[in-house]
């Protein structure tokens, strides 16, 4: 059903991962999404959401920098609920800055429970990571499913998720990460945390220091995809060292025009709020990013090749 929309399919083979990006029919720039052409006032399409492709896949939603309690957060939450009717995601991952400003009990209600009430009522679990605006005691808030830990891991189907506290990457956390990664025999290894290792954002840019500590482990143990927030927009980074990097920090905050498109950017969207949906299948990950108005702004397929699945490639300059 999606194929008629596909004008361009660019096949990139990076290491063992293959990315087939599909852009909407009226997109004109090869390799880029329609992102730069979206506006907040565009009328929403009847349904821009693609259904899952596989029966037993792991389906989840990705949101970041959400805890504002503002209208935009509610609007994204409403779109997520709508999207779930077509793409029944089982859980949501949160990329940090879950509660901005004060963290009184009423803030958890106004900045999390109310906006996502429909999803919470539908028993959709949220798995949070900590951002620089989050008090680490959020790890005790049951609805964030952190089991009282700043960093933790969990499995869903054939995938293992590694949730890190990028605010404070100390030695015990690095040791823990290496132990967990080395033990994992899961088909998919997904890491997520707040600060992006690669970013074209004018405001923050790549977290080079953090990258020097964690990326060697990601490469060594075959992490496939990394999600981060912090930058208030959506960006898909060109594969780095065989790893796919996404930034989704635009689910309630927005820095309009903040993406400095360059060597790193595969696709970007910084003109409206957004969220991302992902499906981990046997051999491929489908992803789709939708705007506050439900418009598709980026989508594609990341195919997972058989082991050995990595080949080192040069890294573009970080900033």
């Amino acid at each position, binding site marked *: 059903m999606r194929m008629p929309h596909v004008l361009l399919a660019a096949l990139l083979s990076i290491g063992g991962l293959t990315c087939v990006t599909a852009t909407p029919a009226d997109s004109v720039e090869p390799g880029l999404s329609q992102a730069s052409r979206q506006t907040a006032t565009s009328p929403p399409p009847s349904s821009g959401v693609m259904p899952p492709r596989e029966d037993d896949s792991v389906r989840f939603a990705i949101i970041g920098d959400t805890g504002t309690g503002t209208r935009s957060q509610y609007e994204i939450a409403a779109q997520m609920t709508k999207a779930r009717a077509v793409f029944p995601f089982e859980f949501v991952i949160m990329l940090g800055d879950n509660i901005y400003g004060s963290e009184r009990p009423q803030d958890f209600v106004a900045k999390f429970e109310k906006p996502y009430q429909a999803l919470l009522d539908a028993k959709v679990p949220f798995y949070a990571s900590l951002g620089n605006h989050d008090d680490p005691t*959020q790890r005790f808030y049951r609805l964030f499913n952190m089991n009282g830990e700043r960093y933790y891991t969990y499995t869903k189907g054939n995938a293992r998720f590694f949730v890190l506290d990028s605010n404070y990457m100390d030695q015990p956390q690095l040791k823990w990460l290496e132990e967990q990664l080395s033990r994992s025999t899961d088909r998919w290894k997904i890491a997520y945390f707040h600060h992006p290792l690669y970013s074209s954002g004018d405001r923050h840019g790549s977290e080079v220091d953090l990258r020097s500590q964690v990326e060697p482990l990601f490469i060594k143990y075959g992490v496939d995809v990394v999600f981060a927030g912090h930058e208030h927009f959506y960006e898909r980074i060109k594969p780095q060292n065989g790893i796919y990097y996404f930034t989704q920090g635009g689910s309630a905050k927005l820095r309009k025009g903040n993406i400095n498109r360059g060597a790193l950017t595969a696709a970007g969207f910084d003109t409206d709020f957004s969220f991302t949906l992902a499906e981990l299948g046997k051999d491929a990950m489908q992803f789709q990013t939708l705007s506050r108005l439900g418009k598709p702004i980026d989508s594609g397929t990341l195919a997972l090749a058989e082991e050995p699945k990595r080949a080192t490639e040069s890294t573009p300059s970080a900033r």
Partner: protein
Amino acid sequence: MRMLLVLAFTASLTVTAMSAGTGAQESPVNPFAQEMVDFRARVNDYMKLRDKATANLPDLEETKDPAKISAREKALGQAIAAARQTAKSGDVFGPEMSKYLRTILAEDWKSRSAADRKALFEEIPPNLKLTVNQVYPTTIPLVTLPAKLLMKLPMLPEALEYRLVDHYFLLRDRDANLVIDVLPKVYPTRNR
């Protein structure tokens, strides 16, 4: 001329490398080793005091009720602050460890790009004042501590963390959200 400069630079590097090698052989001991041992002892003392002061508080467990989380945090902070009423800046860091910290923080500052330096102070209100036994203001972000810098600092128990906020270097009790020690002016003050 260019050849001469290259030769001079090469010679300089060789001398530096030889000096570094010789120095490493002559002085294999970290000059701050004793300070680090003493610092760890003071941290352990703090942890003992903390355990004693908070012995009657129930452990924090996962809860759906954020009121319980904030109440526990507040109670923990109050109990610790009450037990450390006379605590002052530098009590845990100590004078010698403070010198070491200032040295590596100055190196860290030099290594940062202009953008990095600017990012450090992002969203931090001007004229911020932080003192021992103060609750860390929840309305301002916890500035990320660079991972490489963390590797140079003595490890802490999970209950404690280092933080850089504005020109302050802090020792913060993570679950009490309390400033345990503060080292001011480790970075240039706000004129950035």
